[in-house]
């Protein structure tokens, strides 16, 4: 990664130049950039005259996804609508903390024996075991045979980063193939971890569905052993998932080329409403005895966004390999943040291990998933009622929190400017941010954008 070394002054900002100019300043006792402002602000006794060692650092743009909320917050309009970041909203447009989560938190606070000692580097043991069972299935042979190492990480992002750093250090193939398009943060996570990123075709804008042929071709021509990022379900941003049969073909192709699967599972239970159904792709790969990585997030399905709870599981061929892999994962984690935060993981562990609370959770989870599915239907019906040009059936075919509308950048900008609707510039909208009340507004905006902006 090369920094943006634009210079704030006439000199270049290489370290030796900086050192040279520092030396000159030291010798002559003057700063080349003394202006009235710096003379006024520097105290009479300071030896430092307004030149910053950070002058060459430029301002970074806002994150394209999280920046949508920043822009939304700045908007004074009373009718503004935030369909940017994927955080669930109730019908009233409010964030939701699950009842079962509140219950678990109350238990934590009431328990006087609880302490805040450092977790082990790999995190809360109980949480790790339960997370592996959740994604792989309680009866998974891989778990029974101790072939899985699971480490608690900071939600999905942290799990991906730790997994990628591990692969960059210990795996012989340092290329990862990611679908096009994919979550905006994926390429940065992998690049900073030391992997090189390539893409495989995924989305077909004409059909607004899966470009399966392109996917097979691109994975088929990947070098043997390459890492492949797969969205376990509810592909972000498109909402387009392979069918079961297509997953099986992908699996066969990948195994024949020794491609290493790295699953990103951020929506288990949230996509279809069923935890098991949403884990099928992962379990299919594990069932054939092969190896894979899985990054899990509890941000959406347990509404624990800000607590940063997730887990990285690495399924290995043998128990002793899993054990060694775990020891090396610790060496990645220790210099990054030492050990993970306890609060969110404790909540998850309480819920997963208690049968009643687990059942309560599945009910609340299904309610969230169902509300989103109904919003899809509402939006589709509203567009059809307006006679909005185009085929909008992809809205009800796609799955998960997001809809890839197919709107272009200009249309998106139009909707933000004229209708105060906030979304990412790739045309992705978060269905979780819609309600019965706001669907008409969105439908009007889409209709206007499609008919007035090309």
């Amino acid at each position: 990664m090369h920094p943006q070394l634009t210079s704030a002054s006439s000199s270049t900002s290489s370290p030796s130049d900086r050192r040279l100019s520092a030396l000159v300043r030291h010798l002559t006792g003057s700063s080349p950039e003394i202006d009235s402002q710096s003379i006024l602000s520097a105290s009479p006794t300071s030896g430092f005259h307004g030149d910053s060692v950070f002058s060459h650092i430029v301002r970074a743009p806002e994150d394209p996804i999280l920046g949508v909320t920043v822009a939304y917050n700045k908007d004074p309009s009373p009718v503004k609508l935030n369909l940017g970041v994927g955080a669930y909203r109730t019908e009233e447009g409010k964030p939701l903390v699950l009842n079962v989560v509140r219950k678990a938190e109350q238990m934590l606070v009431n328990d006087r024996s609880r302490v805040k000692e450092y977790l082990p580097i790999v995190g809360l043991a109980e949480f790790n075991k339960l997370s592996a069972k959740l994604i792989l299935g309680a009866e998974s042979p891989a778990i029974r045979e101790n072939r899985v190492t699971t480490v608690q990480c900071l939600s999905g992002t942290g799990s991906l980063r730790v997994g990628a750093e591990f692969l960059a250090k210990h795996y012989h193939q340092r290329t990862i193939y990611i679908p096009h398009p994919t979550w905006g943060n994926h390429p940065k996570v992998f690049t900073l971890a030391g992997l090189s990123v390539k893409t495989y075709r995924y989305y077909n804008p004409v059909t607004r569905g899966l470009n399966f042929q392109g996917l097979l071709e691109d994975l088929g021509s990947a070098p043997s052993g390459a890492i492949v990022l797969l969205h376990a379900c509810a592909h972000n941003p498109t909402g387009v998932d392979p069918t079961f049969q297509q997953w099986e073909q992908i699996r066969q192709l990948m195994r024949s080329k020794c491609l290493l699967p790295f699953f990103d599972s951020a929506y288990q239970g949230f996509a279809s409403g069923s935890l098991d159904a949403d884990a099928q792709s992962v379990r299919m790969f594990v069932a054939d005895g092969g190896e894979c990585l899985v990054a899990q997030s509890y941000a959406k399905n347990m509404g624990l966004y800000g607590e940063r709870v997730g887990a990285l599981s690495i399924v290995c061929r043998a128990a002793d390999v899993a054990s060694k892999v775990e020891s090396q994962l610790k060496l990645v984690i220790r210099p990054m943040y030492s050990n993970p935060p306890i609060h969110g993981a404790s909540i998850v562990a309480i819920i997963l291990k208690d049968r009643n609370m687990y059942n309560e959770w599945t009910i609340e989870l299904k309610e969230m998933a169902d509300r989103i599915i109904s919003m899809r239907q509402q939006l589709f019906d509203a567009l059809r009622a307006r006679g909005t040009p185009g085929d909008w059936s992809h809205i009800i075919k796609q799955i998960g929190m997001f809809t890839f509308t197919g709107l272009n950048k200009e249309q998106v900008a139009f909707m933000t400017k004229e209708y105060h609707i906030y979304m990412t510039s790739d045309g992705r909208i978060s269905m979780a941010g819609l309600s019965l009340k706001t669907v008409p507004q969105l439908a009007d905006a889409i209709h206007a954008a499609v008919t007035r902006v090309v």
Partner: protein
Amino acid sequence: MASALLSSLAAASAPPSASLSPREINKMKLNLPCTSFKNSSIKTKSFGRIRMVATTNVSRFDGVTMAPPDPILGVSEAFRADTNAMKLNLGVGAYRTEELQPYVLDVVKKAENLMLERGDNKEYLPIEGLAAFNKATAELLFGADNPVIKQQRVATVQGLSGTGSLRLAAALIERYFPGAKVVISSPTWGNHKNIFNDARVPWSEYRYYDPKTVGLDFEGMISDIKAAPDGSFVLLHGCAHNPTGIDPTPEQWEKIADVIQEKNHIPFFDVAYQGFASGSLDADAASVRLFVARDMEVLIAQSYSKNLGLYAERIGAINVVCSSADAATRVKSQLKRLARPMYSNPPVHGARIVANVVGDPTLFNEWKAEMEMMAGRIKNVRQKLFDSLSAKDKSGKDWSFILKQIGMFSFTGLNKAQSEHMTNKWHVYMTKDGRISLAGLSLAKCEYLADAIIDSFHNVS
């Protein structure tokens, strides 16, 4: 057979903590088929007939070797495994009560109850963390009326305790000061080197600890900082140096600041014990404030693990004091850009606790009292240990360094073999560099520990 080949290769060529090189692994892979297929069909309930493809027995991770346990955190693991009744854990720096129990501060419990009653939501924090926390943490560090705060010249980003904040700063250095070196004290906290290694920031050491005086090698420190290339980052412990417990005097801090300014170095503070060292938040921040008052640009990593007992919540911050508000804005934006691909945004729980405690005058005062209590207990334990050592040791050795050192740790001067003897014979767990955590010591155990130290010191070399 394939696995045997791989294991023997692994044993022959790999150093203990490294894995096989990619070239070695590739060579092996060339000799093996990518996959050997065994097709079988299995009937399952949900899916009908599936064709299962079994792949080769070789793991892609066969070349991964077992890493050694963490030298600090591994001590607690070993302690837990010990069944001896006299065992004492003086390894990791986590505060213990006189009864040697972990301690959750009363103000923390109160804050958590408040948070639950209020029904706070769990939405994502901004990448830079909780605004109320960032404001509170900067004010705590610099003083609320410090000009750098009034002039908005501080970029503050919530980080994952001290480690995470240091890592963000290291990533900033790697990206924007390519080739710049960090100079760190010899010795220093064991994880510092790992952080800079993984962030790919080169480092070297400056002399710090003088084993002859069991004190600060000030001349060596100044000389080595002077010798570092202009524009190096100098890692300093704000107070309660870890592992030695030896801090510079105010006069020495002035001289350190002088030489840093002379060389246009950038001071980089690790502040993990503010309030915990002396019992006073302001006194423990004096070194940082001294540098800031000189209009220097400074990096400071903070942790609330010890002073608020929030170890497992992972709450801290990286602060960058810049010469202008504009620079601070730019630096903050780039810190965010480094945090996003690491963990997206930081955990909310610990940040809320800190914001609630610091933001409420009653809770804040209660916190100060609890902190004084914790620091006070450690001072008492130092005194008792010193008294026990002086009374029991007939050799005339000067043990007063125990009283002069400050903070959670004492650098005993025991070497590796002696430290191991402490564990093997006396079941006293400590790190191999001779560091003991006084936070894990009770008054009741001081005499036992004194016996162990005297025995190890005099009878083992």
